[in-house]
């Protein structure tokens, strides 16, 4: 299959599947019919060229396949009533548009009655069209495990009566929060696995764009998209020769400035929409990420935004990030005061941050102890090497105290 056909397929998969699920009320039948339609398209379009409205062609073909299959099954099962739908032929009357039911689909996949890991798997399988095997690899489980997870989730949707619909107004905010959390989880999973996670990052960005397009009035949808675009813009600078580079040390020429510009436009839209109400967690995080882009970030503003975020989430990790910003603005002592109030004893990043601030204050022995504590807790290899480098630099500083200040 050539490149542009492949691209059309990826773009249309989620929309076509959503339309079929809406039509049939059954995930497995819909998937079957959609796969058949795409297979037919692969042959036909190679021969006859891509139709004017590929999505509509695919939906019509898939529907016809599904109807014909149902009719055959009904006949075989000798049930009393024939399906009262006109016999579908392979020559279609082409309509140009069909309703976009991807929102219904994503809200169904992310229903709170499903476990989070099931929500993630289902979203990637149905909206993203990823193979079960690809999803399994991305989340470090075996293919049979992931397959079972999907089977159980679809079974639960059917048996428990999870509806195929966009939630009513009074439920929308909380349900949308769940959807956005799933998309962000997918993004972070991909982003943290670096090069092997690119497919997942791409998927998360596609989902984020779709949500912003389908729910244009929702500030948080735009906020999440902006956040992901801004984070991802730094992908080529976060590593140097296999080693992690912290944000403030990154080679800014390696940032994707086009993507930063796009992220900032989306952020503006989000902020405009959020006016009047308080900004939500994604708009806040995106705003913080945008401020980090500057050569000399506005630490005061960043600290204030982290403060607002901490208020909304109650998260000590957010407070930790606020402490870092406060340290940049007001000095290491001020940052340490905040850190010492946090109950994050088992979090390596807390100790690494304390170590950094202690280092700046010339409290080298305490800094060493903190780096060692961090090393005892860290899991990621690249992060371990970074901490070891920092510890090594401390030893150099101990021999040359004049180099101790700054940061």
């Amino acid at each position, binding site marked *: 299959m050539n490149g542009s056909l492949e691209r059309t397929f990826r773009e249309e998969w989620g929309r076509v599947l959503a339309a079929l699920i809406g039509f049939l009320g059954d995930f497995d039948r819909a998937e079957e019919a959609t796969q058949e339609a795409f297979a037919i398209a692969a042959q036909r379009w190679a021969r006859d060229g891509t139709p004017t409205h590929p999505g509509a062609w695919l939906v019509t073909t898939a529907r016809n396949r599904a109807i014909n299959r149902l009719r055959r099954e009904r006949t075989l099962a000798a049930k009393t009533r024939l399906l009262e739908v006109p016999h579908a032929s392979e020559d279609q009357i082409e309509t140009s548009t069909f309703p976009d039911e991807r929102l219904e689909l994503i809200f169904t996949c992310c229903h709170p009655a499903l476990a989070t890991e099931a929500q993630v798997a289902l979203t990637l399988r149905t909206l993203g069209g990823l193979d079960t095997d690809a999803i399994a690899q991305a989340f470090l489980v075996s293919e049979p495990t992931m397959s079972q997870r999907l089977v159980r989730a679809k079974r639960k949707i059917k048996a428990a009566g999870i509806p195929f619909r966009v939630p009513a107004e009074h*439920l929308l905010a909380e349900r949308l929060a769940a959807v956005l959390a799933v998309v962000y989880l997918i993004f972070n999973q991909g982003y943290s696995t670096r090069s092997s996670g690119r497919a997942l990052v791409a998927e998360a960005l596609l989902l984020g764009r779709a949500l912003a397009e389908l729910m244009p009035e929702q500030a948080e949808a735009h906020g999440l998209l902006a956040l992901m675009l801004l984070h991802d813009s730094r992908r080529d600078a976060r590593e140097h020769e296999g080693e992690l580079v912290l944000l403030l040390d990154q080679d800014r020429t390696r940032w994707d400035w086009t993507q930063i510009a796009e992220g900032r436009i989306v952020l503006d839209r989000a902020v405009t929409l959020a006016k009047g109400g308080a900004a939500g967690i994604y708009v806040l995080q995106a705003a913080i990420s945008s401020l980090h882009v500057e050569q000399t970030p506005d630490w005061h503003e960043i600290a204030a935004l982290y403060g607002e975020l901490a208020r909304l989430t109650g998260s000590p990790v957010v407070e930790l990030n606020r402490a870092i910003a406060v340290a940049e603005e007001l000095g290491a002592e001020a940052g340490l005061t905040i850190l010492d109030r946090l109950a994050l004893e088992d979090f390596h990043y807390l100790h690494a941050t304390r170590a950094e601030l202690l280092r700046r204050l010339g409290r080298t022995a305490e800094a060493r102890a903190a780096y060692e504590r961090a090393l005892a807790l860290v899991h990621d290899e690249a992060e371990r090497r970074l901490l070891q480098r920092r510890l090594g630099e401390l030893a150099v500083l101990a021999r040359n105290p004049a180099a101790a200040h700054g940061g």
Partner: protein
Amino acid sequence: MKFMLLIHQGATPTPNDPAAWAQLSPEEQNAVYADYKAINETPGVTPADVQMQPPEMASTVRVQDGRTLTTDGPFVEMKEALGGYLFYEADDLDAAIELASRIPAARMGGAIEVRPLVER
């Protein structure tokens, strides 16, 4: 679709525990009665036609190697035990969840399990 809603009182003050029940103001107590009345009168709801005595009065039976073993109390922890139930015929799970959220136990320290029934 038919659902069974299993009501677990959990830490909810109920008339079964007069001391805890007395902690609630008259308004709060009346609100509980009013909520149950409204739920039982909701179209689609079939209230239980019996009322179980509280979990403290339960006895649990197992048979092992042909011997019947009886223990005092419910199968699960006292605070997780079933208190009551009702049946609800609704369009979908969201409707059942909405009804469940209106049951006083849900907001007062208990939980409602929403179980779909097998279609016959």
